[in-house]
């Protein structure tokens, strides 16, 4: 792989980690959804660059799914949901942004050290790509853990999943990437439908999961 192609791939994968960080400190749901749309756009760019340099046209399908489904349809649907539920102006108190950011940096450092040390046998691009991908996955997990709002948790999960797609496209010649991205899209669609159709707000009066955890099924 020539130098410039390598650098662009790096830039895009690194960009994904950066946008993951941006998501961690978004307090407004609308802003969070917009940043997530950006996350998906960066992923689409990264995947199509991989498709270009690996001469793997099927990856363009994955990129298109990321662009159309995750950057447009899903954020659009979630925008509508939160407007209907009347929580689009709500400010979610993110516990200790500074602390979460520090934890995030720790996770990124850990994944880079771990991946680079353990994958010496793999080719240079794949291992660095995997280090970035693991960072995105862990940052997504971090977000799911620190947020209490169901919509933010879904967004956290989707960013985690973007990290997995990044990993899958970085592993050269991996089959089934398209199928896996389709499977994940279906999964996400189900979550979003779940939030919407099950009308969590109606049932729980609030979409704040903190209010749900009182119920343990033990005290009827």
């Amino acid at each position, binding site marked *: 792989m020539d130098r410039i192609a390598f650098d662009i791939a790096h830039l895009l994968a690194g960009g994904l980690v950066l946008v993951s960080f941006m998501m961690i400190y978004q307090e407004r749901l609308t802003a969070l959804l917009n940043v997530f749309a950006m996350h998906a756009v960066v992923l689409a760019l990264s995947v199509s660059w991989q498709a270009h340099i690996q001469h793997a046209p099927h990856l363009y399908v994955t990129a298109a799914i990321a662009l159309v489904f995750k950057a447009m349809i899903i954020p659009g649907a979630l925008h509508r949901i939160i407007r209907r539920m009347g929580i689009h102006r709500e400010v979610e108190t993110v516990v200790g942004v500074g602390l979460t950011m520090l934890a995030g940096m720790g996770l990124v450092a850990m994944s880079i050290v771990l991946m680079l040390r353990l994958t010496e046998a793999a080719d240079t691009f794949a291992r660095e790509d995997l280090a970035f991908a693991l960072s995105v996955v862990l940052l997504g997990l971090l977000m799911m853990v620190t947020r209490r709002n*169901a919509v933010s948790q879904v967004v956290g999960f989707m960013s985690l999943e973007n990290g997995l797609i990044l990993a899958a496209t970085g592993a050269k010649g991996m089959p089934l990437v398209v199928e896996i991205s389709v499977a994940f899209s279906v999964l996400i669609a189900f979550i979003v439908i779940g939030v919407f159709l099950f009308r969590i707000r109606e049932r*729980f009066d609030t979409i704040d999961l903190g209010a749900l955890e009182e119920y343990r099924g033990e005290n009827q």
Partner: protein
Amino acid sequence: MNALLANPAYAILAIPAGTAVLLALLPGYRLTARLNVAASFATLLAALALFFVPRAAPGPYLLVDDLNIVFVVLNTFVGFTAAYFSASYIGHEMETGKLTAASLRFYHAMYQLMMFGMNLALLSNNIGLMWVAIEIATLTTVLMVGIYRTHAALEAAWKYFILGSVGIALALFGTILVYLAAQPVLGEGAASMIWTNLLSRAAEFDPAILNLAFVFLLLGYGTKVGLAPLHAWLPDAHAEGPTPISAVLSGLLLNVALYAVLRFKMLIATHPDAIAPGPLMVGMGLLSLIFAAFMLYRRRDIKRLFAYSSIEHMGIIVFAFGMGGPLANFAGLLHMVMHSLTKSAIFYSVGHVAQIKGTQQIDGIRGLTQSHPALGWGLALGVLAIAGMPPFGVFMSEFLIVTSTFAREPLLALLLVFGLLVAFGALILRLAGFIFGEPTGKVGPAEASLAPLYAHLALVLAAGIFLPGPVVAWFRAVAALLG
């Protein structure tokens, strides 16, 4: 059609998939419930045919070997009895208005789709396909857990969904890492994801990547097995969904995830320089066993109690496979089969009990053997069996696990026995009053289908008294395969 007849594996997949489409289109719950049972029975027959039809060579997508035949037959058998139980259970739910005709149509279609997902996961020879199949099975069960749309059911489904998705995501990362380890040896493309290829060349892979992959896979699929500390979804999902689904979750879905772990364990074990997968599995298994055993004491909800018991037993099974060796593997395999049969039998009786009494709270129900003898005694036998009393099969498998561990690691065996005793005490303590004593609560007539319950119990009892020679030989061969 010829292909379907030549290779039963195709039929095992095509019947549930086709029926799922049909069930989504057909109206009327009586018809669909019967069709569901018939399709499950046909799938079981196809699975049994695997024993007789000469096996096709492993293809790029499907594989039939000694190991997965055990899982497939168990899967389709419990799938059939659960469908049979479900038909009477669901009828009652319709009468009481807990489910509507539309949600029932959805339920039956999802049931077959779930069977398809699980069978595909068991038969797949491609680690990517296996992952997709387990995801299908997870999704469909999430939807069924939430089917009552009550506060508790939705929360349970959400929790299951989030934790299950995270588990599945970690498993995919592990799968990608396995591909990355295989790619330099087997070349780019589909060849590096075919399990039989991977197994034959695993010794040449880079050990560091394999180690990392196994950790991700164990955590990811381990979440779905319900291993502590990743078990949080399991009790809720079992307690709030329809009882046939609780039975299928406990009896089958946990096994499917376990099967995935075992496949990758076999892969890692062939590499001389990779980490030994055993100690990790032994540790997680023991932790789950002891943790769940203590949690059993404070349960007030009957289905939740048995959900914790499932965590306990999955812990024992993972422990046994972690110990490895012919005897422990044999015992683990036997215990897995016994647990599936016993636990689903228990859920069949608990489902009817909860319907009659209108509650799942243990305190609200007393004296079942007096008010409903057939159901009460069935449950009593099931509880004795699952607690590990002789002469049931669970006793035999637990005994084998304990003795084989004593011979090799006496300290671990002590911990194991400790966990077993704690769990035994909890089950007897919590359920003695439930089953015996003066009946309280509603004593309505029981419209229960007892056949699946007693069929399972009879099998468990028979296995405890006498295991036929061919079965023993088969399990031995599988145990040797597992290393």
